């Protein structure tokens, strides 16, 4: 009984404590103005837009998905800084777990304002990701209200939660074209859509107040745009929050708010960037001066100072720099100095007609020197020290008069307080501004032991060997807007006994007398010059009228989303393949016009993508209302010499012109385009065959004809209609391409990750249709393809000489790209069916991101892609690469046969920081060079990452070997296995860099279809074995 009483007592005390500790906040108003009271005390909001995004990450990163250990490490460091400065509230999205809100308040006394952006950057509704919310749509409105109410229910009892904030300058989102900041809209042109937006604000405010009366509700408006709509639509609003970028003074801001709304005003964002766009240098002092004046004005306009009296504080934008903000998807590890919008309220670096707002420099703390865990160092700028001094003044003390405020702020001098930042930052700045510097080193040491059984041609090969490789990054930065980087590779020894002998350090091919033997390297022949090579290089120049991106062996994206409807400028990310085959691509530069030339892009170079001829590609694109027109022209100026591998084989010299119109209407997008290509081939002859009614030519069953390329054969067209209906999305497309109207394949992603796409090759007519149906977290996506060459493949008919008649009957062979004006390859007749199933409970992190394994935040997400291709005819000859590097047509062609494949992929972030991902595949497919043996293969992979520990394994059963020529010549292995286990030492272990050491295992069985098998193929059950153990140490500085 006594025990029961004790338990009840504990429960009552705990419950009472919970209620007692929920933070309560209210706005109080009297004739001297407005104040915010939190937990019964006056509180001027000295707020901070605080967040944590590691260098190299972007908006998709979530600190709260990291381990507790890492989160605490970040919070202890940053909250200590904030408390020391005098910050008393931070602004957070509803992804922060309530326990961390309490943790921050408990440990540092800092409150949190919970900010639901109300669909500003899209929202998941009924399991479907809606990128652009339609605030007039009743269903979407209801979903948003329900989501916000759920957020309120989740947080309202949380100790430390002080305010609710709705939206984030959603009014700007009505006019801006992307999620990046642009020039601030001046007018009120979108009144109809704005009415829908603000009426939703009002609806949400009422819904919150029905459930929670302990926390005031604010909205985050973009300045005071549509304030009259706010007055009429947002009844019950407690605080007008506003993102204000008016420079040193908000001028009439507070008076207008009082006149129109009669509520207190709070800056939800304000501040200044720390980069002088005009002088092209960091200017932390100017930033501090702006912020000092802004805060002085807040103090002066606060309760009881004799002015408007409605300023209750603000949230500085922002704590630390966001290196991802310009571009948002690219150059994430570059602190971009590009000014992306213009604001004359910041006269220190404003020049009419030029941008001066540097989005990546708004932090009052710089970030740098990030370690392998993603933990960066912060260096508070001058503003931090200035505001720390300013905040020592209690705004609501009896002695804080307007005169005292002026005196206090006048005594805070940026110049005197700049020493801490400038002094501590000087050395890093000096390094950064060095015009030429070694910016990185990577050293890799490997040793490997190889074993092989008697029936392998490696049986007597050297068993032990080693590889040493050093990569040196040299950066040249003559001005802040021009940067180039080159990576030099130095090789000591390159192991010659690897089971996979083609790799970057192994450079010199072994001469071979056997023309059909693929090139193999040999260290004995390695010339001294091969020990040093240029591994890659890039150039970035941000000039007044043009931006230049130069690249050598550094990847680039395609222009498919910019109107390149026929894939002329192709994506050039090849991963390890360009190292394997020592490709010298991509090599070239892209010039992007600015200002009046903003519609123009030009790419030029010797090999813009792997296998490309030296060429120039120009693009012009312009939007005319809902219609965007894009024109491209490509002109090859010479033929590319040599190819590293068959996947980047010869392409004939060509020229192409395309025109595309994209029309958007509601949820539908229509793309229509035409192509004119390869006019150089007009007049060239070709051979084609048709089934004969009798024995045919040379008893082949075909009649054989000679044709000639006509102008009409250079023309093609394509149209695609896509409709995004939320839960149901679909597209249809059709195309006709003349015999020589070759272009690139479709590199864009339509709705989901379908693998079956349109081939861009000429000589075909094709049609595709697909639908994406969403059922909460599940997606079902069928996809269909029909394509048929206009002129089919040539059969193989041997020639004959009839001695009796003296007649010669020429033979017919499959066409090839070297000798014929067109071919049938990936445009072969196909009826394809694909079914893609996806389970992804977190659609905001798109499942098909290329780095899904690292970014997907679902506890479990998976996809299954099944593809079946009915191929009723054969195709022409592909090109293969011989040992001497020459390209020749394959001796045979794959016969008509259906193929299929299935691939299951999954990833899990259920136990962060442990990340798991894997795949399983199976399928039946054909070799490239004509061997008729079908390959039915299986395999899978598993990858695990946890802190510094990484483990991965790959298994392939009855699959081709790792190189292109394995599939070309149908070289398969009964079993292949790779395993890799490594551990990365924390930076503190070495003090100056990161180190990773590990081991890789490889095992494979060989049979008569395998490269290097020297047993009797007839004894098919006798397998050879090859294995390798490789240990490595990699150090990065």
């Amino acid at each position, binding site marked *: 009984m006594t025990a029961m009483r004790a338990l009840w007592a504990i429960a009552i005390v705990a419950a009472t404590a919970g209620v007692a500790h929920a933070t309560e906040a209210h706005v109080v108003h009297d004739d001297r103005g407005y104040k915010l009271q939190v937990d019964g005390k006056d509180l001027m909001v000295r707020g901070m837009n605080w967040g944590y995004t590691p260098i190299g990450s972007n908006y998709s990163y979530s600190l709260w998905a990291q381990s507790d250990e890492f989160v605490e490490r970040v919070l202890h460091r940053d909250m200590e800084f904030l408390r020391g400065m005098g910050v008393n509230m931070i602004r957070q999205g509803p992804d922060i777990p309530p326990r961390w809100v309490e943790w921050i308040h408990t440990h540092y006394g800092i409150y949190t304002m919970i900010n639901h952006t109300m669909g500003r950057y899209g929202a998941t509704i009924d399991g479907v990701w809606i990128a652009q919310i339609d605030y007039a749509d009743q269903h979407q409105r209801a979903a948003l209200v329900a989501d916000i109410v759920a957020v309120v229910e989740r947080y309202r009892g949380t100790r430390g939660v002080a305010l609710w904030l709705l939206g984030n300058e959603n009014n700007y989102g009505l006019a801006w074209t992307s999620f990046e900041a642009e020039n601030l809209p001046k007018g009120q042109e979108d009144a109809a859509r704005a009415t829908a937006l603000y009426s939703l604000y009002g609806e949400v405010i009422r819904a919150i107040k029905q459930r929670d009366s302990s926390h005031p509700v604010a909205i985050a408006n973009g300045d005071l745009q549509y304030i009259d709509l706010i007055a009429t639509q947002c009844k019950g609003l407690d605080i007008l929050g506003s993102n204000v970028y008016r420079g040193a003074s908000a001028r009439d801001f507070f008076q207008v708010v009082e006149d129109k709304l009669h509520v207190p005003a709070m800056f939800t964002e304000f501040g200044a960037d720390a980069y002088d766009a005009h002088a092209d240098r960091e200017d932390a002092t100017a930033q501090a001066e702006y912020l000092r004046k802004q805060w002085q004005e807040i103090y002066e306009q606060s309760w009881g100072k004799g002015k408007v009296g409605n300023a209750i504080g603000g949230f500085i934008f922002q704590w630390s720099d966001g290196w991802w903000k310009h571009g948002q998807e690219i150059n994430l590890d570059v602190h971009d100095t590009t000014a992306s919008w213009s604001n004359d309220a910041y006269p220190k670096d404003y020049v009419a007609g030029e941008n001066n707002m540097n989005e990546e420099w708004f932090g009052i703390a710089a970030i740098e020197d990030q370690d392998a865990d993603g933990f960066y160092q912060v260096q508070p700028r001058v503003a931090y020290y200035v505001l720390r001094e300013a905040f020592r003044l209690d705004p609501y003390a009896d002695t804080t008069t307007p005169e005292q405020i002026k005196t206090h702020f006048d005594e805070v001098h940026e110049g005197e307080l700049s020493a801490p930042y400038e002094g501590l930052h000087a050395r890093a700045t000096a390094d950064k501004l060095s015009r030429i510097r070694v910016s990185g080193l990577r050293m890799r040491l490997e040793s490997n032991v190889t074993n092989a059984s008697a029936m392998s041609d490696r049986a007597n090969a050297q068993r032990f060997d080693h590889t040493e490789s050093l990569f040196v990054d040299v950066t040249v930065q003559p001005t802040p807007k021009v940067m180039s980087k080159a990576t030099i590779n130095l090789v000591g020894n390159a192991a010659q006994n690897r089971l996979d002998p083609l790799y970057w350090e192994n450079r010199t091919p072994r001469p071979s007398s056997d023309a059909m033997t693929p090139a193999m390297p040999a260290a004995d022949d390695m010339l001294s010059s091969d020990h040093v090579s240029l591994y890659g290089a890039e150039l970035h120049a941000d000039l007044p009228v043009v931006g230049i991106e130069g690249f050598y062996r550094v990847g680039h994206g395609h222009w498919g989303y910019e109107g390149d409807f026929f894939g002329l400028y192709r994506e050039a990310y090849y991963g390890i393949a360009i190292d394997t085959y020592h490709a010298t691509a991509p090599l070239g530069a892209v010039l992007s016009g600015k200002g009046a030339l903003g519609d123009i892009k030009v790419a030029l170079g010797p090999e813009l993508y792997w296998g490309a001829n030296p060429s120039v590609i120009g693009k012009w694109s312009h939007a005319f209302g809902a219609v965007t027109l894009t024109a491209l022209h490509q002109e090859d100026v010479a033929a590319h010499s040599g190819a590293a591998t068959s996947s980047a084989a010869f392409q004939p010299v060509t020229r192409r012109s395309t025109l595309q119109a994209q029309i958007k209407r509601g949820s539908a997008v229509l793309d229509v385009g035409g192509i004119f290509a390869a006019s150089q081939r007009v007049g060239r*002859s070709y*051979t*084609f065959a*048709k089934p004969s009614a009798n024995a045919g*030519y040379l008893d082949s069953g075909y*009649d*054989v*004809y*000679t*044709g*000639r*390329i*006509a*102008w*009409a*054969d250079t*023309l093609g067209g394509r149209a695609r209609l896509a409709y995004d209906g939320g839960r149901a999305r679909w597209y249809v497309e059709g195309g*006709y391409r*003349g*015999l020589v109207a070759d272009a690139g394949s479709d590199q864009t992603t339509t709705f989901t990750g379908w693998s079956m796409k349109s081939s861009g090759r000429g000589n075909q*007519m094709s049609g595709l249709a697909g639908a994406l149906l969403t059922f909460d977290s599940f997606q079902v996506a069928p996809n269909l393809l029909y394509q*048929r060459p*206009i*002129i089919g493949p040539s059969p*193989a*008919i*041997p*020639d*004959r*000489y*009839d*001695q009796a*008649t*003296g*007649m*010669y*009957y*020429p*033979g*017919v*062979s499959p066409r090839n790209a070297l000798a014929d004006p067109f071919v049938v390859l990936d445009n072969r007749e196909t009826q394809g069916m694909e079914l893609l199933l996806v389970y992804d409970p977190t659609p905001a992190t798109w499942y098909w991101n290329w780095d899904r394994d690292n970014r997907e935040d679902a506890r479990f997400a998976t996809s299954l892609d099944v593809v079946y291709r009915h191929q009723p005819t054969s195709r022409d000859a592909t090109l293969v690469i011989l040992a001497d590097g020459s390209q*020749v047509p394959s001796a045979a062609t794959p016969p008509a046969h259906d193929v299929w494949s299935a691939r299951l992929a999954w990833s899990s972030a259920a136990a962060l920081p442990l990340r798991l991902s894997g795949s399983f595949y199976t399928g039946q497919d054909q070799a490239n060079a004509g061997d008729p043996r079908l390959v039915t293969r299986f395999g899978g992979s598993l990858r695990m990452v946890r802190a510094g520990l990484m483990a991965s394994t790959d298994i392939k059963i009855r699959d081709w070997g790792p190189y292109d020529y394995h599939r070309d010549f149908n070289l398969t292995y009964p079993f292949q296995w790779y395993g890799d286990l490594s551990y990365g030492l924390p930076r503190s272990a070495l003090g100056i860099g990161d180190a990773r050491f590990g081991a890789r295992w490889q095992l494979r069985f060989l049979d008569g279809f395998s490269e290097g098998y020297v047993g009797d193929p007839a004894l098919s059950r006798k397998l050879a074995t090859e294995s390798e153990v490789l240990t490595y140490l990699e150090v990065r500085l």
Partner: protein
Amino acid sequence: MIDRHLLGLLALTASACATDGVPWQGQPLSDEPLVFSSPDEGVHPSRAVLDDPANPFVSGKLTDAAIWQLQSSAGNVSAFYAWATALAYGATGERQYYAALDLKAILEREQATDLPAVRDRAIRGFQAVLTYFPKAVTYDASGTIAYELATPSVIAIQELGGTAEGWILVMTPDGHTVAVPR
């Protein structure tokens, strides 16, 4: 062709893919005298024979089997074109040797209008065997016994009144004559 009409693009396709309209029927090989159309025709690395309008083997797939049949049964001019065409598509010492050998036969049978040019071309053809394919061989009918081609090439050059550059003939201890590099 039917597919294209199915597209309903008659206007477009009517002018496209223009054919000669007549299916292949084979062609009689001419016994006309050889007339070169370029100065290096039939001598590696020239591929000029592919542009010779008199060459009957430019179109279509020329197989080794047919070439050997032509070498044994057709006229020397046709055989020369066959070997020279094969040489242009894929250079080997054997193809170069037989192209030169056929030129030598044409010279001996006076089946050309410009015989001095044929003599010169034959000598250069044999010399190309020595220069570019010094280890070239040909096989007997069984395809198993190989014969080196340097020695007959040097001998042929001498028979044509020329000098094999970089090569001489020597007598082996067993009494055979073989060509060796100087």
